[in-house]
């Protein structure tokens, strides 16, 4: 006689704790893989339909195992149809079909796939748009009604019938409103009794039934089927809708001093910014402006990969940006962001001109302007935290004093980008910088 134990009521998810431990591990892994991914690919591509599959580095379970590509071995296989000893069978190519001997999908091939949404959530964990608050206060453009529970008052169009009837039903039960069937039953009995020849007892019965009927009908009148107290209305909250367009200006110095390394660093910064904006706005556009001694709007390919050389006049880029804003991106419809990457080389006179442009117009039009200076790795420890620096850096320092929506930072190598980006775009204590 076996013992039977019904375990179905035992707690399920015995492995929940183990799964949470695994996911925690996987998360670290995933973050690393996303950062690697940014390095390759176009700015807009990074955010397109990429589902990042996790390389199982941190979650691999290594052990000593035989290398498949070494030595001599035998496979004993079933299902020979036509082979004779000495026949040669070509090996399946790399990544070939699953029929190659001894090749089975192991658990370490298991990829933990996250959707693009999840990836970006991970990526932008605790990053905030710098002036979301200000945006709401300053330019509330539209309100969108949003369902927010029920209310006892409201307009007739918003009556919630289901909810109202539920209340009415409850009230009717609580107050014992006579039901139609009860009345029908009494009337039926009356009809039968009245049709029969009258006797004293029957007469008595008819009187009590009449009284009962009258009482019930009175009660039915007093207790309404639907009472005003039952009625519920759908409640709507007006929610401010932020301006839903954003344009991002990428300004880059492409003069001779900006080498491959500098451009690569700048690109990674722009990728981050683009991803970030895309996450917040329905529609984001990117404008690439590069400049030497003159500025021009170009496509992404040209922006990053074309080699052009010449002198450096930074203000041309700012002017080009202002011109494009006037033409295509009216600032009451667009949230304008700008990121400028440069090695900071500029003529002192032109830097003065830049200050003028920024103070005069650009900072008023922009939600946010981030200046990233790409410096030599050897200089990073010198310039790390001081205000000394290139002519442009000093000029922008003055702008930085006056405008809360301006930020500047220095990048010396790839590892700096993410921290700097976070520093520039981290949730700031309501722009108290110079308050």
């Amino acid at each position, binding site marked *: *006689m*076996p*013992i*039977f*134990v*019904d*375990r*179905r009521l*035992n707690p*399920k*998810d*015995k*492995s929940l*704790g*183990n*799964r*949470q*431990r*695994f*996911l*925690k*591990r996987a998360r670290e892994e995933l973050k690393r893989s996303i950062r690697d991914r940014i390095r390759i690919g176009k700015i807009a591509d990074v955010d397109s339909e990429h589902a990042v599959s996790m390389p199982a580095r941190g*979650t*691999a*379970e*290594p*052990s*000593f*195992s*035989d*290398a*498949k*590509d*070494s*030595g*001599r*071995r*035998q*496979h*004993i*296989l*079933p*299902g*020979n*149809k036509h*082979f*004779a*000893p*000495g*026949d*040669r*069978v*070509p*090996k399946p190519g790399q990544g070939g079909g*699953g*029929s190659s*001997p001894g090749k*089975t999908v192991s*658990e370490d091939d*298991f990829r933990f796939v996250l959707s693009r949404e999840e990836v970006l959530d991970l990526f932008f964990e605790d990053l905030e748009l710098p002036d979301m608050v200000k945006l709401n206060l300053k330019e509330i453009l539209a309100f969108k009604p949003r369902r927010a529970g029920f209310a006892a008052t409201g307009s007739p169009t918003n009556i919630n019938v289901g909810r109202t009837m539920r209340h009415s039903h409850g009230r009717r039960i609580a107050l014992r409103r006579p039901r139609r069937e009860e009345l029908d039953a009494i009337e039926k009995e009356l009809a039968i009794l009245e049709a029969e020849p009258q006797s004293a007892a029957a007469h008595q019965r008819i009187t009590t039934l009449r009284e009962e009927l009258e009482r019930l009908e009175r009660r039915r009148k007093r207790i309404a089927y639907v009472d005003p107290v039952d009625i519920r209305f759908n409640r709507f909250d007006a929610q401010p809708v932020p301006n839903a367009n954003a344009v991002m200006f990428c300004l880059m110095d492409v003069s001779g001093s900006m080498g491959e390394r500098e451009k690569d660093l700048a690109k990674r910064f722009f990728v981050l910014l683009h991803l970030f904006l895309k996450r917040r706005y329905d529609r984001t556009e990117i404008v690439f402006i590069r400049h030497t001694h003159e500025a021009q709007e170009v496509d992404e390919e040209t922006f990053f990969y074309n080699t052009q050389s010449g002198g450096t006049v930074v203000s041309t880029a700012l002017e080009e940006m202002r011109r494009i804003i006037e033409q295509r991106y009216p600032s009451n419809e667009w949230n304008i962001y700008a990121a400028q990457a440069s090695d900071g080389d500029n003529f002192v006179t032109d830097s003065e001109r830049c200050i003028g442009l920024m103070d005069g117009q650009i900072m008023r039009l922009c939600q946010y302007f981030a200046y990233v200076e790409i410096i030599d790795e050897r200089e990073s420890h010198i310039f790390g935290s001081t205000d000394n620096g290139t002519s442009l850096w000093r000029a922008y320092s003055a702008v930085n004093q006056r405008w809360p929506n301006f930020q500047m930072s220095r990048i010396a190598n790839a590892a700096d980008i993410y921290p700097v980006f976070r520093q520039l775009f981290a949730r700031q204590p309501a722009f108290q910088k110079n308050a």
Partner: protein
Amino acid sequence: MANQASKSSQTSKSGLLFSGSDWDFKTLSRAYEAIEAIAIEELHLDVYPVQMEIISSQQMLDAYSSVGMPLMYRHWSFGKHFLYQELLYRKGGRGLAYELVINSNPCIVYLMEENTMALQALVTAHAALGHNHFFKNNHLFRQWTDASAILSYLDFAKGYIARCEERHGVAAVEAILDAAHALMEQGVFRYHRPPKLSSERQREGVRERLEYEERSYNDLWRTLPRSKDGTKASGTDLGMAERKKTLNLPEENLLYFLEKNSLVLEPWQREIIRIVRVVAQYFYPQRQTQVMNEGCATFVHYTLMNMLFDRGLISEGAMLEILRNHSNVIFQPGFDDPRFSGINPYALGLDMMQDIQRISTEPTAEDRDWFPDIAGNGNWRETLLDAWANHRDESFIRQYLSPALMRKWRFFILADAASEPHYEVASIHNERGYEKIRAGLAHSYDIGSSRPDIQVVDVDLLGDRQLRLEHKVKNGIMLEEASRDATLRHIRRLWGYEVSLAAIDAQTGGTLNERSTSQIGE
């Protein structure tokens, strides 16, 4: 057909064990009694008492992910395993097993609530009798595992590791478990039997070991002045031989070696390594007897179900369902089929056992040549009971794989040299190939030879304390480099000092390469 079915179900209605697909405990119990009676009387099976547990599919997934044990310590890799299984299950890539059985006394069998009654009967025959008999009688399990103590040991292990996590933090415990898991393959004694566990002695043992650790820790300091009493320090051959002797080198059980000799581990860390080692050892016989164990269970359920049907105890409908599931389980695609993923142990085991049945009752002339001992002896029951008790996969195949079966399976051997762009067909199922195929197949089930052979060969406790490992390279098969380095890193964590691994050619004795943790970096 329908007519016939309804007629038969009508005539034998009173005799049926169950009708319809729903099950309840009374029916399960009745079915078990009937199946057990036939199993003992007809197949002469000998089983542990059974405990049947009904679980849901979610719980089945849970059980999978804790290596099938009802109790297991916590570790992220089990969570990974769960998600992997769940993914396969959700995608429909893999059904859940209908059953899970644990080698313990009483033998625990999990039944899924979703199963129909016919399936529950099948599972009862397969697991509660087939596997159960195998666990109780096979010599590997008898010698190497302690069915009565495993559950209480795991209970101890789970509690112990949880307490360590509380005291030392999850991350610290995880680091040790990760490292120990990486060495599970190298954490078993292959040739001598591990001491029996008992829950009382276990706890006693913990205390003893802790004391021992303290003593050995002191020993480390006492070794310091020893170098001055003689100039023979660590370098001389004599010292080396002595050292190897005291450390019992070479040692193939890396986990055991590290647990006993590492200079940096704290007592609780040693205990965790020991737990992993005990679990690895417990599963070692299972891994050596996959074909036999599944074959035995499948043979038993197939035979018993047919006997039940012949006696009119189960309906045709139920039998059809059972046969359909049975044939799914023993499906074996050929090597060129996209579904091929190796040899199905259920199929090979069942076929070999039915073949033994055939050889002992209706042998051909060929069988008489190949199996003079059993051909025509007429007593297939005893022959099978004997095979189940005394073999593991490797020896079972070497002994019993018949030419007839090799022809049926159309076995052939592909020789695979990594340097060649093609395989070469070495042997096929013909007179000249039978022996080679049989030996080759048996060899492929020999864990001892199919896993990398890695041993601790030397350690210089008085010098730089480098731990030297040796990998015996057979047929030029090297270790996969990325996972080798990662594993060495784990060993270094447990050992605390440099670890080096030399690849030694098994034939020539020459060193093929040497890898040290100093080359790897963190």
